[in-house]
């Protein structure tokens, strides 16, 4: 199917695939491309840096991306620290030219400052025509952030990178600066202060947060990092109030805020009820490509549906395989539940009541 299919028609197709249990005839609209596990940070909430694999090369991405048939609208380029890769700008260029997404999202820790200063202007240039959302990871303020992230002078470096992004916005209006906080037991009590200070220091277009959770991908299955439901609710209640009081005029930032208003409540309910509160479309509408070519339905379970290296770099072969179908069956049977933000975004758009509320938030008729 071509990308020209309207998004609403595509979403309807995902719903049919989920309802009938049939293999989806469509490729995912929401794709995460993790380009490396390597990372110089030693975060208290993440041990992904311990994983060592043979990362896909630019040439391999160049064979793979065309098989996505330009369907993904939202592509997240994640890590590890993506800026460990000197060829990151070339990977992003391929994503833009071969997938043509509407939004490219890059979460950033800001550690390898010199590389960022070299590559980010090139990445901004390559993504003209899409929206480039650069989310700085800010888990605390000042040295407290450096301690949580296990990286010396990280907060200071983040401020340098934010300055660069603000400069990029002057010549590349498609660049959007976000700040992202992982809410864990280490900072849940300070979220209102962190949010307030981060907005003042970094002047982002949007501020978002996500709960720290146990993920196979991050090797955090044994870490006691997830805050209590009550604490998480308190923190996100503040964030929702702030969003309502300070709606962004930037269209992409406003869309993100509208999704977040719904997501925070959804995440709290999932943590509380430990079940899929709305249907999950991971493996149908969203997917995650690991650095070594394994395709996952989501990074929480990080179960391989197959490796594109074993199938001629054809995404469709893995996506339409029997292992992928088994993953979808398991998700549909509610054998898992999680508040992963990335998948939740597409889940919200595919749940009619949630979509109505997101739309109301977007146009400002939500009271």
């Amino acid at each position, binding site marked *: 199917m071509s990308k020209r299919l309207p998004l609403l028609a595509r979403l309807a197709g995902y719903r049919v695939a989920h309802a009938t249990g049939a293999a989806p005839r469509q490729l995912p609209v929401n794709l995460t491309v993790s380009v490396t596990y390597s990372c110089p940070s030693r975060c208290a909430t993440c041990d992904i840096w311990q994983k060592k694999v043979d990362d896909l090369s630019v040439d391999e991405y160049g064979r793979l991306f065309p098989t996505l048939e330009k369907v993904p609208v939202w592509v997240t380029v994640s890590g590890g620290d993506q800026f460990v890769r000197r060829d990151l700008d070339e990977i992003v260029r391929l994503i833009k030219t071969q997938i043509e997404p509407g939004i490219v999202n890059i979460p950033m820790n800001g550690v390898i*400052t*010199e590389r960022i*200063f*070299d590559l980010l*202007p*090139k990445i*901004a*240039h390559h993504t*003209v025509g899409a929206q480039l959302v650069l989310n700085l990871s800010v888990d605390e303020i000042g040295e407290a952030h450096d301690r949580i992230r296990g990286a010396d002078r990280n907060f200071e470096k983040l401020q*340098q990178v934010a300055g*660069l992004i603000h*400069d*990029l*916005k*002057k*010549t*590349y*209006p498609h660049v959007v600066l976000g700040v992202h906080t992982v809410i864990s037991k280490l900072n849940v009590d300070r979220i209102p202060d962190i949010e307030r200070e981060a907005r003042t220091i970094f002047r982002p277009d949007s501020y978002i947060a996500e709960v720290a959770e146990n993920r196979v991908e991050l090797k955090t299955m044994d870490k006691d990092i997830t805050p209590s439901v009550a604490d998480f609710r308190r923190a996100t209640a503040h964030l929702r109030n702030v969003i309502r009081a300070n709606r962004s005029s930037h269209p992409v930032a406003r869309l993100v805020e509208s999704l977040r208003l719904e997501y925070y409540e959804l995440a709290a309910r999932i943590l509380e009820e430990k079940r899929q509160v709305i249907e999950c479309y991971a493996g149908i509408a969203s997917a995650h490509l690991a650095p070594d070519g394994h395709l996952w339905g989501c990074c929480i379970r990080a179960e391989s549906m197959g490796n594109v290296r074993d199938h001629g770099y054809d995404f469709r072969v893995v996506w339409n395989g029997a292992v992928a179908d088994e993953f979808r069956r398991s998700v549909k049977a509610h054998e898992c539940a999680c508040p992963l933000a990335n998948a939740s975004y597409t889940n919200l758009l595919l749940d009619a009541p949630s979509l109505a509320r997101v739309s109301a938030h977007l146009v400002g008729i939500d009271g």
Partner: protein
Amino acid sequence: MHGFVERVAASYEAGSMLFDSALLGNGPQTVAPDGELPEQPVDVVVSLAAPERVTGWQEYLPRLARLARKALIVVARNAERPGQGSSPEGTELAGVLWAAGRVREHAYLAAPRMLAPADVVHAPAGRLVRRSAPFHAFVVDTRPRSRQARRRLRVADGTHGGA
């Protein structure tokens, strides 16, 4: 336009300047865009309408940037303004400038006063300003782009005093 150039030059404490058009200032050194460039660098280089006036401006502007110890100011026709005709710039100019240094300022110049709050309006500017200003200007900081790079340069120069 002159005020913008003077303000930027002052902020960079420019002791020496080079212009490629007498329209932008009568500095001690003025060169025609198709003329030979001097070998000695200066603090600030100012260029007018290079994308329209210079064949091979994509190579010309980086040459100017290499001459600028502190900053390159590029004033160009605003391609967003209707009726400007075809312009070779747009995002291509932005890419060339970012490859030459760090673009610290982008401003729209000389928009009609009834549509703009001032002669110089910095990006992001409103639609009326972007569609009416005949020129826009970029300030490219040509000094090493990161603190680490500046520190390395000081070490290489033998002027690094810190631990």
